[in-house]
């Protein structure tokens, strides 16, 4: 016996909590990836990140509605189409926002933070006016909501697996894009030396715009995926802000590996503590630990030591 549990139960707990932690980890990575790209590569803090996610969620909802009414046969696979559309919508909005707002503020990073907060207010009210104040229910194909029983206690939720797979896919895609493609080279070149990059013929403005759009697009996909586990309403985006920022900052700006590692650390800590403490205290302790570590190591988990 361990505490109130038998060994069997205890191992089941470990297995299930481990899995719950992995799902949470995937969720965090998915949330943070878009922000990490924008923050890491451009130094811009996008406070409207949550609203870009919710845009993706609404697009998914709309696609679901459309498919149910006009092409019910496609319903089982509509989610993939919806994710693609969510990416396009968020990407387009992101590019527009970069053009209209962000590009004027590159020299004032703190001000982008404020301006994007204003943007998030406007987006929230837009959602409320367009879609109503109530949450919308996103109907998912049945196959996505089931679970696979492993033992009589342990069951693996399919949507959890789906989120994990999706996260892996997107993370790999982003890594390839950043480190293997020509475009990724351009992005990194601009990050390291904007003037020089411009001098060798890279269209730095276009690189900025696409980077911002990409980050927002990934946020849209994340929002689309989150319709499986969370709510879709005008203000739902705000729920993710603090967690997302902490993941990115804790990981160390500019490091995708760092973002992933920090998402892992935070999610495991939180899901483990949640089992033994009350939900509120688990959250407080996790956040407090993260802030505490950041005070000891402000540069985050992974940062290159560079000559200033």
């Amino acid at each position, binding site marked *: 016996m361990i505490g109130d549990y038998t060994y069997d139960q205890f191992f089941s707990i470990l297995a299930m909590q481990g899995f719950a932690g992995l799902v949470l980890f995937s969720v965090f990575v998915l949330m943070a990836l878009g922000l990490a790209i924008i923050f890491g590569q451009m130094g811009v803090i996008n406070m409207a990140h949550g609203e870009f996610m919710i845009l993706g969620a609404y697009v998914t909802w709309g696609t679901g509605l459309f498919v149910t009414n006009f092409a019910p046969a496609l319903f089982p696979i509509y989610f993939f189409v919806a994710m693609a559309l969510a990416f396009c919508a968020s990407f387009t909005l992101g590019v527009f926002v970069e053009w209209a*707002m962000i590009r004027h503020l590159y020299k004032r990073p*703190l*001000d982008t933070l404020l*301006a994007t907060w204003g*943007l998030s*207010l406007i987006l*929230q*009210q837009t959602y409320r006016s367009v879609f109503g104040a109530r949450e919308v229910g996103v109907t998912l194909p049945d196959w996505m909501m089931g679970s696979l029983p492993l033992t009589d206690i342990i069951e693996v939720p399919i949507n959890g697996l789906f989120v994990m797979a999706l996260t892996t896919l997107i993370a790999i895609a982003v890594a390839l894009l950043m480190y293997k493609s020509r475009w990724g080279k351009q992005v990194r070149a601009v990050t390291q030396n904007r003037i020089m990059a411009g001098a060798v013929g890279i269209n730095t403005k276009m690189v900025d715009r696409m980077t911002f759009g990409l980050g927002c697009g990934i946020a849209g996909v994340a929002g689309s995926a989150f319709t499986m586990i969370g709510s879709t309403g005008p203000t739902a985006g705000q729920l993710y802000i603090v967690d997302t920022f902490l993941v990115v900052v804790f990981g160390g700006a500019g490091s995708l590996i760092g973002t992933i590692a920090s998402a892992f650390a935070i999610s495991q800590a939180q899901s483990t503590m949640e089992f033994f403490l009350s939900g509120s*205290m688990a959250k407080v302790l996790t*956040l407090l630990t993260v802030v505490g570590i950041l005070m000891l190591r402000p540069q985050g988990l992974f940062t290159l030591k560079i000559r200033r």
Partner: protein
Amino acid sequence: MSSTTSAAPRTFFGKDAIAFIVLAALILVVFPVALDIFRLNLVGKYLTYAFVAVGLVLCWGFGGILSLGQGIFFGLGGYCMAMFLKLEASSPENTAIQSTPGIPDFMDWNQVTELPWWWVPFNSFPLALIAILLVPTAFAYVIGAAMFKRRVGGVYFAIITQAVAAILTILIVGQQGYTGGINGMTDLRTLLGWDIRTDSAKLILYFVNAVLLLGVILIALFVKSSKFGRLLIAMRDKEDRVRFSGYDVANFKIFVFCLAAAFSAIGGAMFALQVGFMSPSFVGIVPSIEMVIFCAVGGRLSIFGAVYGALLVNYAKTTFSESFPELWLFAMGGLFIAVVMAFPNGLAGIWKSHVEPLLPRLMKRLRPPAIVSAPTKAPAE
């Protein structure tokens, strides 16, 4: 920044003195005369936010330290005051129907049967007053020391203060047996036996609040006009240079952060007194960022601008939400973006660039032409 001559150091006489007198006249005479007690009480509430905004001018405008967690200090100050008032409102006679009379109602609802030890000092008014200033300032010191000694700044600092605000909110909401949870501390009635809900009390509290605000503004003006104020600007622009001129930059940042926290705490305490309750909705991220808006709209570099910003934005919020509640967020968001992008120095900046240059010309018209001197001051015609 206004320029000065080398021989005469910047003081808060001159232009600032006029601005101070105008503001004092406005909040001490014009508002009380022109507004009924209901509206005046609202203005009093707005002015409590001005404490935060003035702190932000020093901290953010001059020092370049953007805190997205001023709500923490506003809230802590407010809670310290509310705890005292709540204890006074929870006398055994008032709470006779509870299972444990003599403790605040929310404790009773949550099966707390004894006043927690850290509530005990709040039985005393002097101790509560000390706590109002000390607790938030000490908290700011801890955050500031940890961050600034390690040279965390800019966006990182903003995000961490934001996270701390989130943590504190969750903590207050989660520990409802000791804090009142999401309801906050409500039904605060008397201060040392004096009913703070009556109209006359509200009028007096308004003036106390106004005088305290003017006092805080004087302190801020003093800081701004001292060498410390110029150092803040210097640190914002070239932190390294300040360091290599022999200053321990972290200490200066900690000081200004603590000062802003103390200002916010006074505002929070006055809020609790005037509104009659305190709730975690002032501690979180959203109110903290809104307070930054007040400051940004008024002008992050202008102490007076911040006060007008707090008044204007809140007035707009009240009127807008009375007539067009749905448009309010659009207006607020739009205002935010417009100020940041087009008028980074806010109202004060517009005043300085558009109104002030007109003044000498106006003066010239008013005076007989013979006395006109100093033509260099007038803009080219």
